[in-house]
């Protein structure tokens, strides 16, 4: 009852609850929140429990730099919830921040994008987490569907549209026609695996240990998926494992390309598998129009070139690929109001 009343003062939200970043699209306002999915927890011995110290960008700055009583954690792993309670607290914080209110607890209608490969248990955990965070109504939609809609693909047409959404924890590839998913697959490879591959490469070849944040910075600065004419370099600092002291060294883009080969081949394999499994008529449509890349991983330099060379199909990157899923979810909320939740077979 109270949720219904508070619902009148809350905006409908579409939440891209990602492993790396959480984005919130507010109906009528656009993307109102883009924060890392990180929560800093402080062990409060006085009160005998855990207290949320910081959430989002503030907490991410603490990653790897926390004292003993503070732990900066990512409550989502591979696109699904790893820590239910912390996820609920994080969602509660983000929903309140998206509404910008301190006077009452918002109770919005929420649409959450979930990985296509998530299990029923994982979906239920996400739903209950959102309800615990104050949502009065929760819809779940597969991420590739939201990504395709957000990218502006003609998902309602009787023609095949292929989308590849590369997130922080998972990569989702799907072929969509007539508002439904014909084929989809989810591989647990994403931006986090890229960072991990860079960390492993540096440790293996330089004997130096670097943190998550440094690995991510290297990926953004000189990361590449396809050999280019230009070789870029970046200066990196890490701890030398044999000497035990911090050292500075230089990495170049070709080394990072080599480091990323394994996760990249996993994604390419998933796309090829999808093309093999797609019915021939829809496959012909995809070959004619191309594959659309969305998600933060699509911003890896020359990833589209790699996929074009590997598949022989045109590949384009959507406008503002990082926000496609959240924007698509927002459009789905509008379509739910117009046609009901059955239009996309939503849960």
């Amino acid at each position, binding site marked *: 009852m109270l949720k219904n009343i508070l619902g009148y*003062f809350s*905006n409908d939200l579409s939440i891209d609850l990602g492993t790396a970043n959480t984005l919130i699209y*507010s109906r009528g*306002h*656009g*993307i*109102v*929140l*883009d*924060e890392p999915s990180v929560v800093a927890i402080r062990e409060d011995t006085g009160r005998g429990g855990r207290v949320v110290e910081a959430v*989002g960008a503030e907490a991410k700055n603490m990653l790897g730099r926390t004292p003993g009583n503070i732990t900066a954690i990512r409550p989502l792993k591979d696109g699904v919830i790893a820590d239910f309670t912390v996820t609920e607290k994080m969602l509660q914080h983000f929903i309140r*921040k*998206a*509404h*910008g*209110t301190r*006077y*009452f607890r918002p109770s919005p209608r929420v649409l959450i994008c979930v990985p296509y490969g998530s299990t029923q248990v994982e979906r239920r955990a996400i739903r209950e987490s959102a309800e615990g965070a104050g949502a009065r109504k929760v819809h779940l939609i597969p991420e590739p569907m939201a990504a395709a809609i957000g*990218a*502006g*693909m*003609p998902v309602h047409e009787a023609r095949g549209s292929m989308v590849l959404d590369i997130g922080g924890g998972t990569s989702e590839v799907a072929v969509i026609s007539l508002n439904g998913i014909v084929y989809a697959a989810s591989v647990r490879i994403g931006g986090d695996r890229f960072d991990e591959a860079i960390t492993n490469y540096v440790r293996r070849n330089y004997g130096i240990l670097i943190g998550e944040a440094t690995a991510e910075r290297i990926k953004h600065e000189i990361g590449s998926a396809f050999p*280019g*004419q230009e070789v870029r370099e970046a200066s990196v600092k890490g701890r030398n494992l044999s000497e035990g002291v911090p050292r500075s060294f230089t990495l170049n883009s070709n080394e990072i390309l080599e480091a990323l080969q394994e996760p990249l081949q996993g994604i390419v394999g998933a796309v090829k598998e999808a093309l093999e499994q797609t019915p021939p008529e829809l496959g012909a449509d995809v070959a*004619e*129009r*191309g594959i*659309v890349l969305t998600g933060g991983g699509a911003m890896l330099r020359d990833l*589209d*070139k790699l996929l*074009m060379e590997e598949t*022989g*199909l*045109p*590949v*384009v*990157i*959507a*406008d*503002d690929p*990082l*926000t496609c899923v959240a*924007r698509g979810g927002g459009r789905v909320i509008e379509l739910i109001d117009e046609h009901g939740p059955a239009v996309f077979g939503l849960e």
Partner: protein
Amino acid sequence: MNKWIISGSENADDDAIAGQRLARARQEKNIPLRDIAKELHLDEPKVRALEENRFEDLGAAVFAKGHLKKYADLVGVPVDDVMSDYYKMTRSTPPPPLVGPQRSSPREFSPGPWIAGSVFLLAAAAIAALVYWYLTSGEANRIDDNPVNTTVESQQPDESVQEAVPLPRETTQDGATRFEEAEEPLPAAPDAGSQAADSAGNSPAAGEPDAVAELQLSLAFSGDCWTEVSDANGARLFFGLGNAGRIVNVSGVPPLQVLLGDSDNVAVQVNGGDYQIAAGDRRGNTASFTLEAR
């Protein structure tokens, strides 16, 4: 693969827009169309459609924009210029910039919280008004109940038991108003003279309205008649619709104000004696008169 890339090319004709700008740049560099098609992994007709600004041939906007960006990159034309042309031609707009939390919050742009605050204040005021109304109406009921004894009798033999008529009243489904029945008949009003004598010596309330002799008013209804009877204190002794066959007995401190909606359907008795409604008190079927102390 990027052998055609040049930096900062401004060779395109000013009149050329979007695809035409790309075609001109390609021709200036003597790049065959099929090479561009090969790089973009598109059919030659699709590339030609791009150059002739027939974007609908490429399907949805996301494909046309993606291929335009790649094509511009290949022939060294600034991507922003080509996309600007595209948005002008299609009368569309680029995706809105991210509204980051550090740049804005909905509260700064939306009047929602102010409206919410106002609605909460209004709701609180409405609740306060409701509580005030409830409390004041309760007091009115208590005032009605205390000094007045109202009884209703039926002329029918099997319903000859006297009925007390306390407020509040109930409304039946057919809209008529009736009164709750008391379990026991109330005792008759005490004798005014003895009450006055009793209270004269030891009570400071002597001389107050309670000590004045009450009037006994009996209303015998032969048909429907809306009736209101109030005493000297303004308290309602009876308020409702009298039905045929009912007798309502009320007693109260005079003067009693009586309003009868259809006076022809009512026989009035005061202190056991018949009372004739004066012609001056009648106005059509209704009658309004005052019963003074006797």
